[in-house]
């Protein structure tokens, strides 16, 4: 790529003062795990809701030696992931990958890769509503006070109401967690299946909410506990079938409708994980149909 092909922006789009402001917020966020640090979120060349928070965090930490992976619901090839990856190729000329193992920075919208992350990696979440108490208390002044006083009774009442109405905790995504025994945090709308992966993760986890102007973080080796009750302990989703393409069990599956006669299949939500397994010879019950189609 010649310099003429590069967009005429600063490296990674953001100006240096913006990066410094975001970097200071990231350092404070790491120092206070689970606490939402306000930051002066900028307008990005994409609408709010498309991951502007995650994009700003990635832009502030990204360097020329990094290898970037972007996933949208576990997939590398969906619109949001493709456009954000293309954005960083254009404004930072950064190396990109779809392989979880090869990436140094993984920007994600609502999934944590199935493969265990390692200490050289940073996971950047795109967060729509960073405040876990927001739907219970709309006033920022009040939620801030609740965090200050560690007053999280309301959240337990909400989970209790789930049990009273449904017989179990019906929250399946954005399931609230307590970080290092202090702050209740929204893990972003990841399925609760992924919550246990946040606990004592080897990778640094950064969360950016662009519209809501908040950055928060979970350092490596930090306690992340999903809220629950003694008689209704936290449970993750289970699937009765393995992945139809790679036969993987104990992974998060997406339901795909195949026809208008009720045909459906369940496949890995993490496309890289599924491809790696297929490449190493694992086969699900519909894998032959896929090969025939190709």
């Amino acid at each position: 790529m010649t310099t003429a092909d590069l967009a005429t922006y600063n490296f990674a789009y953001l100006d240096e003062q913006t990066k410094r402001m975001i970097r200071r917020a990231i350092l404070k966020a790491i120092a206070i795990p689970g606490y939402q640090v306000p930051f002066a979120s900028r307008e990005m060349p994409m609408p709010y809701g498309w991951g502007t928070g995650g994009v700003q965090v990635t832009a502030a930490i990204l360097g020329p030696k990094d290898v970037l992976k972007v996933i949208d619901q576990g997939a590398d090839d969906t619109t949001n992931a493709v456009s954000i990856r293309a954005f960083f190729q254009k404004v930072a000329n950064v190396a990109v990958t779809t392989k979880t193992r090869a990436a140094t920075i993984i920007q994600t919208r609502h999934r944590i890769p199935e493969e265990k992350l390692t200490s050289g990696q940073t996971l950047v979440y795109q967060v729509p509503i960073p405040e876990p108490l927001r739907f219970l208390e709309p006033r920022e002044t009040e939620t801030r006070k609740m965090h200050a006083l560690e007053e999280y009774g309301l959240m337990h009442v909400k989970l209790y109401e789930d049990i009273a109405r449904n017989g179990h905790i019906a929250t399946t995504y954005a399931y609230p967690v307590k970080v290092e025994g202090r702050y209740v945090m929204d893990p972003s709308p990841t399925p609760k299946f992924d919550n246990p992966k946040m606990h004592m993760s080897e990778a640094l986890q950064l969360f950016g909410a662009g519209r809501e102007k908040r950055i928060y973080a979970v350092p490596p080796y930090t306690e992340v506990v999903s809220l629950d009750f003694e008689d209704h302990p936290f449970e993750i989703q289970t699937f009765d079938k393995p992945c139809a393409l790679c036969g993987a069990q104990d992974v998060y599956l997406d339901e795909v409708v195949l026809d208008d006669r009720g045909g459906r299949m369940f496949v890995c939500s993490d496309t890289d994980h599924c491809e790696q397994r297929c490449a190493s010879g694992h086969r699900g019950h519909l894998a032959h149909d896929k090969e025939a189609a190709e």
Partner: protein
Amino acid sequence: MPHDTLAFTGGFREPVFEAQSVFRTLMDCMARPGTVGSAAVAVAPPAPLCAAVGAVALTLCDNDTPVWLTPALAASALPGWLAFHAGASVTDDRQAARFAFVEKGAMLPDPGLFAQGTQEYPDRSTTLVVEIEAFTGGRPLTLTGPGIRTEEEFAPVGLPDMFVYFRAENRQNFPRGVDLILVAGDAVLCLPRTTVVRVKEA
């Protein structure tokens, strides 16, 4: 005055990439307290500030961040250097300072005198950047807390005996408290407010 020209030289040569590399070192070290990173960048702040602390200052400070300096640093050409290269102003008010810089050999000020943040906004606290002699060879201290799998250890030379007490005081105010960036030569080690520092049992 010879001091005046000192202010205009010795900044980053590649501001974008050098700031990014120093920040990544700081981020990794803050996320993994006790880990020693490298901030080897060719900047030349006025004496007695060392290059690595100068690099940290240029990476994090700008006109949004009032800076507190020790008497020796305030009397040097540093205020002009910071103003020219970073646009940062110097303040005497420890409560207003977002960053505080302490050169090697200077007395470590009580972190409790700096801004601690508030219970609602604990991020509004000062970050102390302190140069010491070395991370090895002194009294062994153990580190525990978020970012540390079991336990880390370091043996700083150049921190006062009061240091462990300062840290204990700091930890009590959680989530309020100051965060610490220690520098020895080109090496960096961070102690966020969450890190518990204890004297290693013999």
